[in-house]
């Protein structure tokens, strides 16, 4: 069970242990949701009586929170402020409660409790149906105190998710009564009963695992509730919840706030009702909400009160999933950091699950590749394909062959076997690795992949020691390490010729747009200095890489920058239909030799085109030209393309503007992601054959068809950078920073990657930026340290537990100095016959990486909806399988998640809500295509933060504290309007300023005297000499340093227009484009699982 699994790692949590047991069962088991909720707390508190104590505070908070919610409408800040007022604790509460909550979750299905309730109630489901009922909801809402405020919300909420939760809690109480009359009654009773009953028991339970049970409790009732109820219930819950998140009943909300203040006592309930959503989500609210709930006993009364207040007779307090009770990514990350961050990760053992990507840890290579190179979805592979099919857990490895290592870790040793080249198995061609078994006194070795017995060549012979190990095992990297490199012999080179050092070609759009935006001038200026920093190998004095320059609009201009010339020469090629390279000698030059000419050229380019009126550009011919140039020079290399507009000039690869938002949500949506013509694929193929990698920098002012333009970069292992509406003043830093990084980073060229596995499994599918001409070889024209390839494995035979499963990833590439090398990564995995072992050794982050890539590729061929459904189904199947086969028996209403996958739902929801799979109104087609291709080569750490952004409070911890503040969950509820937060997802960086931030803070950070004077959309913080300013700027810098792309800062003020943009990244909340909130999704997932189980 999760417990078990979690337990081991989790211990830290403290109570957990007791809890776990309890909760699995209990929680799911049958606790009436409502009760459950309380219990959980109980549980937590359990440990603590405190809990009960807390109640009071809780209560107070509750109101606060509630208040907030009401104010709701989303303004988290207000709410928080409110909180602040309320419970001094608010903040603390938030956190504190959060912490508690988290623990719970950590240990248990956290959420389970809340979930249960939700889930349990079919109601939830119904909600979906009902959504339409929103009207009703609104009505109800109206009925409610919230009424007006709420009204707007509901529609947005639309989705069932929202409501259900709320319903669960609230259900019984009001709405039903009114609207559903009949239902309510019937249901109500049950509910009521259920609750009480449930609650009671759970409480008793608490000590154990009780906490979760509550969730379950809901289940029981729900059934009765069924559809109607929900809607009805929604009144309380749904509407509220929705409104809160989504829309902005704010104004009204404010009033609530006022109430809030008052609330402590009675009002709370009110709020709770309304807030349900809110509370759940908000930290602060939680406390309170729970208060009431947890206290069930008391709550009940509360409920009663509610009931009374609302008027409706049946006062079942709406119960909702407690957001704090559901698994929190933040908590998981923190825990892993604390538990595993301190010790180095030693790779000697087979099948070890490495620490999370979010944890800083050192790796000691003792025979397996570092997780920086390879991460697997599971480190314990089912022995049979049947098992694998049953579990539905994808078996995949995310491989980053040239990953950069922290300075503390040594890069792979280079092994030179001289003329004979690396030693390989004769049959399967696997390379010598630590798993090869030497036999017959060392005269032969048995391949660990295919079991073939090979002779050891005489020059490689070595005696074995008493353990059967070669005496020189530790002297030879290939016998003792997981990752190492071989120097390749001439047999491994194209045309059997050692490669020439690669070349970089800079290809600059000089059409009107590029010139006017200042791009050309900026770029040329930058290149002058940047050329000194071309990647070089080891201690080389100067880079071996040669450079060339091309500018273009609808014709191409090549430059002869031969060192002997006094002035560069421009050669115009206007035959774009049949591109060729007009010169050979003098096009690709050594930077130092031709420096004067290059400088002169870069000085003159902006002048030459300063008056251009050419707006049309070509694109395919540009790539073609670069590729031909490399071909003519017989070397591999990289093209840096700086492009501004849709290539509409008459030429091959000419594109039409086909951006059509009407296609969204239709079966034709996939065409938006597909390239317009096959020409680019053909071109890419040629590029790959030549080892020509293309990096594309886009500066569009409008639609440029990223989907098509990125085909070549994508297939050649290149990168795409996009700077919409580029303006030098605003985007200069971001662009230059990306450019510098991109130019300087170490790259391998003309690479072929092959993944070999031991008999039984086989690499069947590959995701990433590369080209494959057959089913096994991944061909990469270029490969840098940021590019990742995700490989999926399938069984083709049985594995056995004893031998485990081995992976060997071999990458043949040309280094930036022109040396041909083989980089080998080996990884040994365990095999299992028990599903539980599988679930215990999974890595959710990797799983998400795989699923996201799988889905993002899926949109090319299937309607987006199908892709989303597939994801949900697969996730449900995984979890259902666990529930069915691994979890200890418990009530069906309980959601039980494996410890290793407890974040799967929240992360998956984030994937589902991403702009590719669920675009908001403001997301352009290009953005979607851009993100789609970007994700394709992301590694696990990048996908992790990309899908679940980090939200860092800046003003909560003391200024003196220089460590990175602990993140908070990405939900509006977690924002307090008295604080400032940073949010980053690897691409974007926001600084959110609460409306009630202290003046002093504003002053020291922005250098202005009040909140209102802060420029919204600011992208640079003023450099001020005070601790806070330094700290924040320092933090921003360090965040940027962690990411492979420069994140442009956007300052967002609370309640400002830009906030909409920002809210998009609060992924636990319901999104404007219709994405479910975490809570709602969890409920939905639970429902799916239950369906599968039944």
């Amino acid at each position, binding site marked *: 069970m999760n417990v078990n699994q979690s337990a081991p790692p989790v211990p830290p949590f403290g109570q957990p242990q007791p809890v776990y047991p309890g909760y699995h069962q209990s929680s799911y088991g049958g606790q009436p949701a409502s009760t459950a909720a309380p219990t959980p707390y109980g549980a937590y508190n359990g440990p603590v009586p405190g809990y009960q104590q807390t109640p009071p505070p809780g209560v107070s908070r509750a109101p606060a929170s509630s208040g907030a919610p009401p104010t709701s409408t989303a303004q988290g800040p207000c709410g928080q402020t409110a909180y602040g007022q309320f419970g001094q604790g608010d903040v603390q509460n938030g956190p504190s409660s959060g912490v508690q909550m988290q623990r719970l979750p950590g240990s248990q299905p956290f959420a389970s409790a809340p979930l249960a309730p939700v889930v349990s109630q079919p109601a939830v489901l119904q909600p979906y149906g009902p959504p339409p009922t929103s009207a009703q909801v609104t009505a109800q809402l109206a009925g409610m105190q919230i009424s007006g405020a709420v009204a707007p919300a509901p529609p947005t909420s639309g989705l069932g998710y929202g409501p259900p939760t709320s319903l669960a809690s609230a259900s019984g109480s009001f709405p039903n009564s009114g609207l559903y009359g009949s239902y309510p009654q019937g249901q109500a009773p049950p509910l009521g009963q259920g609750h009480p009953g449930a609650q009671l028991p759970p409480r008793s339970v608490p000590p154990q695992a009780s906490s979760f049970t509550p969730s379950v409790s809901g289940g029981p009732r729900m059934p009765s509730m069924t559809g109607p109820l929900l809607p009805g219930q929604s009144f309380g819950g749904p509407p509220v919840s929705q409104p809160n998140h989504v829309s902005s009943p704010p104004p009204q909300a404010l009033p609530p706030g006022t109430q809030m203040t008052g609330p402590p006592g009675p009002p709370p309930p009110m709020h709770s009702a309304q807030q349900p959503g809110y509370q759940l989500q908000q930290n602060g609210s939680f406390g309170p909400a729970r208060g009431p709930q947890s206290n069930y006993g008391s709550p009940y009364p509360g409920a009663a009160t509610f009931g009374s207040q609302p008027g409706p007779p049946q006062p079942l307090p709406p119960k909702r999933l407690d957001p704090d009770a559901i698994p929190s990514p933040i908590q998981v990350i923190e825990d892993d950091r604390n538990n595993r961050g301190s010790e180095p990760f030693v790779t000697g053992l087979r099948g070890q699950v490495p620490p999370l990507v979010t944890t800083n840890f050192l790796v000691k290579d003792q025979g397996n590749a570092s997780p920086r190179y390879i991460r697997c979805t599971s480190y314990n592979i089912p022995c049979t394909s049947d098992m694998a099919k049953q579990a539905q857990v994808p078996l995949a490895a995310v491989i980053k062959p040239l990953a950069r290592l922290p300075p503390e870790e040594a890069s792979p040793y280079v092994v030179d076997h001289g003329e004979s080249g690396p030693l390989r198995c004769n049959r399967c061609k696997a390379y010598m690795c630590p798993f090869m078994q030497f036999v017959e006194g060392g005269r032969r070795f048995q391949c660990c992949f295919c079991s073939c017995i090979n002779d050891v060549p005489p020059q490689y012979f070595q005696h074995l020691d008493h353990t059967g190990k070669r005496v020189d095992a530790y002297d030879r990297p290939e016998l003792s390490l997981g990752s190492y490199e071989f120097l390749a012999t001439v047999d491994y080179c194209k045309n059997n010729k050692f490669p020439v050092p690669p070349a970089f070609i800079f290809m600059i759009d000089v059409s009107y747009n590029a010139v006017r935006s200042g791009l050309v001038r900026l770029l040329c200026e930058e290149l002058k200095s940047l050329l000194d920093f071309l990647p070089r190998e080891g201690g080389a004095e100067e880079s071996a890489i040669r450079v060339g320059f091309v500018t273009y609009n609808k014709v191409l201009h090549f430059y002869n920058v031969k060192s002997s010339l006094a002035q560069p020469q421009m050669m115009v090629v206007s035959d774009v239909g049949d591109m060729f390279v*007009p010169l050979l000698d003098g096009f690709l030059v050594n930077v130092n030799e031709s420096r004067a000419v290059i400088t002169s050229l870069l000085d003159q380019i902006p002048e030459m085109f300063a008056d251009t009126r050419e707006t049309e550009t070509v694109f395919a011919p540009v790539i073609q030209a670069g590729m031909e140039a490399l071909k003519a020079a017989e070397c591999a290399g990289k093209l840096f393309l700086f492009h501004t507009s849709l290539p509409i000039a008459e030429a091959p690869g000419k594109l039409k503007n086909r951006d059509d938002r009407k296609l969204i949500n239709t079966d034709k949506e996939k065409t938006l992601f597909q390239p317009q013509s096959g020409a680019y694929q053909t071109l890419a193929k040629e590029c790959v054959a030549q080892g020509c990698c293309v990096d594309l920098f886009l500066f569009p002012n409008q639609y440029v068809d990223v989907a098509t333009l990125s085909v070549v970069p994508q297939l050649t292992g290149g990168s795409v950078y996009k700077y919409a509406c580029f303006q030098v003043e605003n985007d200069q830093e971001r662009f230059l920073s990306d450019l510098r990084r991109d130019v300087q980073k170490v790259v391998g060229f003309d690479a072929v990657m092959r993944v070999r596995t031991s008999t039984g499994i086989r690499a069947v599918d590959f995701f990433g930026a590369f080209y494959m001409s057959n089913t096994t070889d991944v061909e990469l024209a270029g490969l840098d340290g940021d590019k990742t390839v995700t490989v999926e494995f399938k069984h083709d035979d049985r594995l056995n537990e004893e031998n485990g499963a081995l992976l060997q990833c071999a990458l043949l590439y040309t280094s930036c100095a022109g040396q041909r090398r083989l980089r080998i990564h080996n990884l040994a995995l365990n095999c299992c016959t028990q599903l539980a072992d599988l679930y215990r050794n999974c890595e959710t982050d990797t799983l998400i990486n795989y699923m996201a890539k799988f889905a993002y590729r899926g949109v090319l061929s299937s309607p987006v909806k199908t892709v989303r459904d597939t994801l949900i189904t697969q996730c449900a199947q995984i979890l259902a399988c666990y529930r069915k086969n691994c979890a200890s028996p418990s009530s069906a209403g309980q959601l039980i998640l494996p410890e290793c996958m407890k974040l799967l739902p929240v992360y998956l929801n984030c994937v589902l809500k991403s702009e590719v799979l669920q675009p908001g109104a403001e997301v352009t087609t290009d953005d979607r295509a851009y993100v789609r291709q970007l994700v394709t080569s992301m590694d696990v750490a990048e996908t992790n933060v990309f899908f679940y952004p980090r939200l860092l409070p800046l003003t909560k911890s003391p200024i003196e504290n220089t460590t990175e503040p602990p993140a908070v969950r990405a939900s509006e509820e977690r924002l307090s309007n008295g604080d400032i937060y940073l949010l980053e997802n690897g691409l974007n960086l926001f600084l959110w300023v609460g409306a009630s931030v202290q003046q002093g803070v504003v002053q020291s950070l922005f250098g202005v005297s009040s909140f209102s004077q802060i420029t919204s959309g600011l992208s640079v913080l003023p450099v001020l000499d005070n601790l806070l300013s330094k700290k924040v700027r320092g933090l921003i810098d360090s965040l940027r340093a962690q990411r492979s792309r420069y994140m442009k800062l956007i300052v967002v003020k609370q309640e400002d227009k830009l906030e909409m943009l920002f809210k998009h990244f609060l992924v636990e909340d319901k999104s404007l484009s219709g994405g479910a909130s975490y809570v709602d999704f969890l409920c939905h997932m639970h429902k799916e699982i239950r369906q599968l189980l039944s």
Partner: protein
Amino acid sequence: MATYLEFIQQNEERDGVRFSWNVWPSSRLEATRMVVPLACLLTPLKERPDLPPVQYEPVLCSRPTCKAILNPLCQVDYRAKLWACNFCFQRNQFPPAYAGISEVNQPAELMPQFSTIEYVVQRGAPSPLIFLYVVDTCLEEDDLQALKESLQMSLSLLPPDALVGLITFGRMVQVHELSCEGISKSYVFRGTKDLTAKQIQDMLGLTKPAMPVQPVRPAQPQERPSVSSRFLQPIHKIDMNLTDLLGELQRDPWPVPQGKRPLRSTGVALSIAVGLLEGTFPNTGARIMLFTGGPPTQGPGMVVGDELKVPIRSWHDIEKDNARFMKKATKHYEMLANRTAANGHCIDIYACALDQTGLLEMKCCPNLTGGYMVMGDSFNTSLFKQTFQRIFSKDFNGNFRMAFGATLEVKTSRELKVAGAIGPCVSLNVKGPCVSENELGVGGTSQWKICGLDPTNTLGIYFEVVNQHNAPIPQGGRGAIQFVTHYQHSSTQRRIRVTTVARNWADVQSQLKHIEAAFDQEAAAVLMARLGVFRAESEEGPDVLRWLDRQLIRLCQKFGQYNKEDPVSFRLSDSFSLYPQFMFHLRRSPFLQVFNNSPDESSYYRHHFARQDLTQSLIMIQPILYSYSFHGPPEPVLLDSSSILADRILLMDTFFQIVIYLGETIAQWRKAGYQDMPEYENFKHLLQAPLDDAQEILQARFPMPRYIHTEHGGSQARFLLSKVNPSQTHNNLYAWGQETGAPILTDDVSLQVFMDHLKKLAVSSAC
């Protein structure tokens, strides 16, 4: 006879015209029986320092189909202010400007001495001269260097407002933009792809700017940079730029593997040059000057592949139909030449290489457009350098000796029709009443375009007498021909030169003697030779020779005096006496014999033969041989092996070569160093004399001849030996006195044998 010779000479000097017959047989039948057709050699721009152009426009006959120009032959009624056209007899009113004319106040065009007159057309904008250099960069370093220097030098010879452009080619073709500062800029084209004119103009970005150019804006002598294209700039503006650019020209940088020829895209380069001018300056005088150092090896117009092991086509290959690329390449260049001609531009080819360069395929470019063709061994020879420099030589007025975009129109009186022309021209396909059905040379038209013309260019124009036998010309009647040449003078003026000539008609029956006496055998020999060469270009060699022989025999039969079947009795009158000898040498000339010549050489020789004036043509047919000795002043001697004597120095001028040959004894003396001894100064002078004379020829000749200095037994003596009449050969050596002349090792027949045979055939009644 002397009178006729004088008459001929006088006419030639005044009008630049020489007729084969100076008295014309009056009927078609008679005319055809004369064997040599009625034809003339016309030098349209013959230099006439004594002929100042008149600054007004000609008066035209008002009949639309005639439009002949008022000339001294017209009947003028001074009182009625009327004139009668002497071609169509239309009576025309004089224009108002001529109101003041009278017998004593005649306009120039009515005076007999102005049978050739030149008008300056004031209308229209003067367009600048345009020189577009198309330069091969696949050259050896010193060749390229020499070429670069020549080109740079040429810039200083151009008038400051002339437009120049530069295209270089090797594997790629680069069109250089000349206006830019700093970075030198060029447009590059693939050398393997043929492009249409439209594509070229699009790619050069000419389509838009070209628009404003089209409507030729009236006289603004100041060239506006915006009007002219970026690729063609006035020399005074970009002199420095272009000089630097030429100085920086590099050899084609693409590596040439062992055993391969460099890839040379001559076909595309020319195509682009033509397209560029076509788009920017149609119908304006322009010269495309192609400098190439080897055969085109890729793309359209390729003449040979890049494999060195496959040699370039020889006559042998062509006969066996083994010249893979010849037809296609020829077609390509013909297409270009026709387009160029249509635009009024001309193409020069300066080909300097030891091997062939594909002149055979490319010959039509200069041939059809009136361009020059120069062939040399290297750009680093004085032959090329001097020749190239001579192109820019100036006349007494300081103007270039070149004219552009000329059209030649021929008008004839009714009894005559024009059958065709042979020379550096293309037909304009203008049918008219005076166009004959029979074609001789380029026919079917009364107008030809001559895109490039210099004062020595001479066309052969052939006529047909159409008068019927039973409608004889009234005695004393004269036939008239008017040649009207519109052209762009190198001073950029448009001019019209009009030459009107008339000759008497004569009845063959009664006046054969007159006709005979008026026969111009030199002109006839050249005109027949042109016909022969023109045929040879399209037919097999032996057929042409046979045709020539038959013509000769028929002529002898017609005009010889003999007793049937008695060769010994055969005599020819003085006016015919040299003709057979010309034919003998013509048969041996490189214009009709391809043996020992490469196809390129043949094309080269024929090119020049078809455009030089009568004197030069005769030299080509029968080289001149001078002999220098202590026995007397230098004297012309027979072009015969008997002239090769040990104590003589010979100077032979074949037009293409100047050979100085030291006889055996002279050579020994020289070797012994007598010329350096003061007491033998006369020997030194003797050695020097032919050198000075040769120098004189070299100075004037275009193209500069190959200068050969050799001696008895020298390998280069072959140039002499191959030309002289082999009167002594190894076959008959001992039949002649030992001390006279040198034997030639050949099986060719000697003049004596030829003449004997001719006589025999002439007197035979068999044919």
